[in-house]
Every structure is written in structure tokens, then in C-alpha cells.
């Protein structure tokens, strides 16, 4: 018995050496879904009556949100950038009408709607205009200013469109530029040098 124990103990150092090299070293490596960027991805910035406004998703608790508004026959794709924790803070919303007057498969409608080009601004007292855009600004007092309330002499421009997948969801990223008038029941504002990176999705 003693000899057996001794023989067993003889090989313990060999086992220890094997153990020595068999330990796997781990590291803390936080992972996030691919598709994100190290800097804020979505933003809207513009000059509103010579006041610079700049909102970005992820800064100052501003969050971008995508939505699809459907009526019986019309579909509109929306992107808003606001702080849900502070409803009193001002925020932007950009809407683009679907490419057709009927409801189709949402993803197909989105794919057919977003492409590079210039768009007219939707007018509030006009019928639904396909592919038209609407810029809405809500100030900190809660007054809503919209491009649909004022006749526009400029166009809304989509300069870049890209498909993006994040967290297993499909998005359309669009780079847009705009210059327009926005009006509420009380006032009209000039929006110039407007540029935004916005996302649309049907999820």
C-alpha cells in the first residue's frame, strides 16, 4: 500500500505541471450587438431662426425612436429624437410618406420609399402625397411647429441610404438635408442648414 501511494505521489508533480499549463485564462470583454458606433449614430442639427439646435441619440438622454403610422390607406414612416424622461424638452420628428397610396408589406414599403433623391414637403391641407416629407419641431413650451403648415419653396433631400442590422433588427439609415419653414398656430420659424442621420424600421 505504501509503495502504491509512493508511486502515485511520484506522478503528482507531472500532473501538477499538466495542470499548470491547462488553466484557461479569461478576460472581461463586454460585448454589445454589432452595428453600433462609438460615437452617436443618429442626430438632427439645424439652425432655427439662427439658433443652433443639435440633438443626438444617446446624449442628454435623447433617444431615437422609429415608428410606422398607418391609416386606412396611407402609411408614413417616422423618426423622432427626444428625451422620454423629460417631455418638456424640445424635440424633432421627421416623417416620410410611403411610396404608394395603399398599405403593402411594411418592409417592402420601407425599402421602396427610402432612396436617394429630393422630396416635396407634405402640406397639411393637401391630399396624401407619396414620398413627401414632414419636419416637426416641438419647443420646450409644447408648441408644435410643422413644415406642413407652411408652403415650402425648398426640397427635402435624402443623400444617403444604408441597410443596417442591430440587435437582430433591420433598419434603414438615411442621411438627409433640409431647409424649410415650420409654423405653429402662433409663429413661423426658419430652419436652415438642417442635416440629420435618421433611422427607419418597421419593427
Amino acid at each position, binding site marked *: 500500500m*505504501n509503495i502504491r501511494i*509512493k508511486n502515485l*505521489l*511520484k*506522478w*503528482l*508533480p*507531472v500532473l*501538477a*505541471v499538466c*495542470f*499548470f*499549463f491547462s*488553466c*484557461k*485564462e*479569461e*478576460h*472581461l*470583454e*463586454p*460585448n*454589445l*450587438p454589432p*452595428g*453600433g*458606433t*462609438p*460615437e*452617436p*449614430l*443618429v442626430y438632427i442639427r439645424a439652425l432655427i431662426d439662427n439658433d443652433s439646435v443639435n440633438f443626438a*441619440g*444617446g*446624449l442628454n438622454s*435623447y*433617444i*431615437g*425612436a*422609429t415608428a410606422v403610422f398607418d391609416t386606412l390607406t396611407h402609411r408614413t414612416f417616422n423618426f423622432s429624437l427626444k428625451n422620454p424622461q423629460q417631455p418638456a424638452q424640445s424635440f424633432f420628428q421627421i416623417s416620410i410618406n410611403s411610396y404608394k397610396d395603399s398599405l403593402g408589406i411594411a418592409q417592402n414599403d420601407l425599402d421602396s420609399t427610402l432612396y436617394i433623391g429630393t422630396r416635396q414637403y407634405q402640406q397639411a391641407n393637401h391630399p396624401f402625397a407619396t414620398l413627401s416629407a414632414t419636419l416637426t419641431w416641438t419647443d420646450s413650451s409644447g408648441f408644435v411647429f410643422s413644415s406642413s403648415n407652411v408652403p415650402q419653396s425648398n426640397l427635402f433631400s435624402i443623400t444617403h441610404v444604408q441597410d443596417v442590422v*442591430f*440587435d437582430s433588427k433591420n433598419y434603414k439609415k438615411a442621411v438627409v438635408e433640409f431647409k424649410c419653414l415650420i409654423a405653429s398656430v402662433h409663429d413661423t420659424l426658419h430652419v436652415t442648414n438642417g442635416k440629420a442621420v435618421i*433611422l427607419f424600421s418597421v419593427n
Partner: protein
Amino acid sequence: MEKKHPDLDNIFRKEISDYELSKTKDNWDLLNHLLNEQDRKKKNRKLILFFFSFFTILSTGLFIFLPSKQNAEKEIALPANPTTITKSPSVFHSSESEAPQPAIANQPQENGNEKGSENNSQPISPSTTPSHSGAIETKQNVHTAIIKHSTIANNSNTVKHLSINPEIYLTQETPTVIQDSNKTILSETQMSKSGVSDLPITESNDLISATAPTNEIVNQNPIASDSINANTNNDSSTAVVRQYSPGDSITNEKHSTHFKLITFNFYAGINIYTTSSAARSKQENISPLIGLEFVHSNASHFGIGLGGLYSFQGGYHLSDTASNKNYFLEENTSQQTIQIRQLHKLYFPLTLYYAIAPKHTVSAGAQLSYLLSTNGYYTETNKVSGVITESTKNNVTGYMDGIKSINYSVSVGYKYSLSKTFDWSTRITRELADSYTKDYFYGINTRPSFSIQSFLIIKF
């Protein structure tokens, strides 16, 4: 194409010929130097790991493949006076009426000293009295005999066989009682490997008769002795059987003339060490410690030992956090936190021993410690697109960032011999380098620390 400026190259050469590169290190040199230093550190670490692995394997191999001293220390029961050696055609066997191998041995009582017997199985005539000692008579050439270095010893009242080879046996009769008035004659037969035959040997055709007087060394013939040497790897161990009285059992005493060069010790003990937490409060902890040590000793008081000890140490509060964030519609965050609570550590002490007294030994040495792995609690929190998920795992292993995997220390100690098998040892160890990367763990003392190790040692 016409060359408008044929000497254009020479113009530039002349202009820049006086230009000398700055000898001071600019940022690129510094960066390059730092990168090279990191590479050197990695190479040094690998080199150290390689050497320690090499020495560990080497010591293990030495221990395994060095001839064992115990193999040579055979218990040999040798015949008391009188001795009778009998020979069969292929077997020498001592003759006795109670011999367990009657097929190869004739009874000495029956055959006596019948030297003229033609039977090849005739026993060697026993010398039943000391007066017959001093002569070995052989029927064959005993020089061809190969004596195997093992002997089967039966009890004192039965036959004891000295195995010469599978075909040769030396058998001893029941010891003869030589009664003196108040003393018992000591029959001592010693087989020495040096084995130069001093006994008179008489050869005859049929039998060998070897009779040794009381207290006389019976030696094999030189050739047979050489065979012993070959079979025992020059081991000079001797075996002595003393019969103090006929009624006593045979006592075998092993006399080893060798000093054990390498001993093998098993360590089991505790490790007392200090840990600190983020609150900068120190805490004493005790962890188990187990391991092996090979000690090389010489005839003087000194010895040197190389060991490998494993310790599973708890009581740590090493918290490490890593976070990552990116942006999509909003800021997405992922945070991982590991709180290391236990360390698996290996120690490789190289110790110099000095025996100041038969039971008291002091030691001093250097020790390398290696971090094998860690145990801890792991927490991960993710916030993606406004959805928060959290997960926790217990007993995660392998997170060692911020802890220096290799450290060096010096130690002094004391060892007390409790018995032939057990020792008790304790030593104080002082680290020579920081245990952790500076400022990696908030509030953790990174300076070298002391520890006390105490062992019970089992010697093999």
C-alpha cells in the same frame, strides 16, 4: 523628353548631406522602446515558466528513474551453523527432514557426508557440528553458479532457503543449539556482496558442502560474488541473520551502508496570509497547503530541497469592472464585473536545510509562486435599445487580469523531526515584488506581503 535639370538629384544630395538625425529619442523612439520592453517582459515570463517547468520535470524524472535504494535492501536470512548445501542436477538444496522441497533435496540425515554418492540429487552433506566447518566441497564447478540476491526466510524452526538462482537454493537446517552453561552461542552468518571467498573450498564430483563456524562469514566464490554485483547494481547492502537462541525467532536486521541521497517528502499544512479589501481593512486568512518536495542531502548537515506546493487561498475581495458602450438609437451599455474571492496558487520553494541538531533543522530559501487560476463571482449587465438584462454567475474561474501571475519571495524556516516518518516545519515568507498591478484594484494593497506556512511532513 528633354531633361531641364540633369543635376536635380545632386542638388538634393548636397542639400541634405549636412543633415543629421537627432540623437535624442523622439516620441516614435520612445514608443518603440516601450513596445520592445513589453515584448521583453513577455519573453522573460515565458523563459521563467519554461525553466521552472524544466526543473520540475527534471526533478521528477530523477526521482522516478534513479535506482531505488529499497530494491537493494533485501532481507536475507542466512543459515546458522551448521549449514548444509545440497545439489540436485539443476538445484542445490539444503537437506533437512522437513525441507519443503523434497523433490530436489535429500535428507541430510539419510545422506550425511556421502561424498561418493553417484546420485546427482544427493544433498550436500550437512555439517552437523562445528567441527565440520571450514570446508566447502563441490561436485561441480561452483564458479558457474549465479547467486541470486534474495532469500526466503521461513520461521526459525523451519528451513530457510537462500535462493541462488531459480535452480539453486541454499537451505538451512534448524539451527543447532549450542548450549553453554549460561550463554547462547550466536550464530551469525553474513553474506557480503564483496564476497571474496575466504573459506576453504573443496571440490568433489557430486556435492558441495559448506560449513561455516559460528560467527564466521560465509562468502561465495569470487565469480558468484560478481554475479551478485551484477544483479544488485553495485549495491553494498548486507543482510544479517542472528539467532540468539534456538527458541527465538530469527531476527532480520537490515544494515544499509548507503546514505539516502534524495528523499521524497509529502507536505500538508496551512498558509497564513493577509488580504485587504477596498475598504483598506486587512484580514488574516488561513488556507490549506499541500505538496511534495525532493530533498537532496549529503553526509554533512546540509541539504537542498526543491518542492512544489499547491494552495487554495480565499478571503480576497478583488473587484474588476469592464464596460463597453456604443450608440445606435441611444446609448447601449454592457458592463461586466468580476469579484475575485479565491486564488489557486503554486509555490516552488528552493530551500537550503542545515541540521543544527539531530532533530532540529533550520532552512532558508527562495520561492517562486505562480497563479494558476482564480475563483469569483461574475455579474454582467447589458442595456441595449432600452432593454436591461442582468446575469450573475458564481464560481467562475480564470480571471487573472491585474494579478501578477509570477512572484518571488524569500523564506526562513525551522523544521523539527517528530519521528522517523513525520516532521513539522514552519517558515516565514516575504514577497519581493508587488502582487497586483498598481492601481488596478481600487483600495487594494499592492505592496509585497508576509505569509507564514506551517506543514506536517511525511517522509518516504
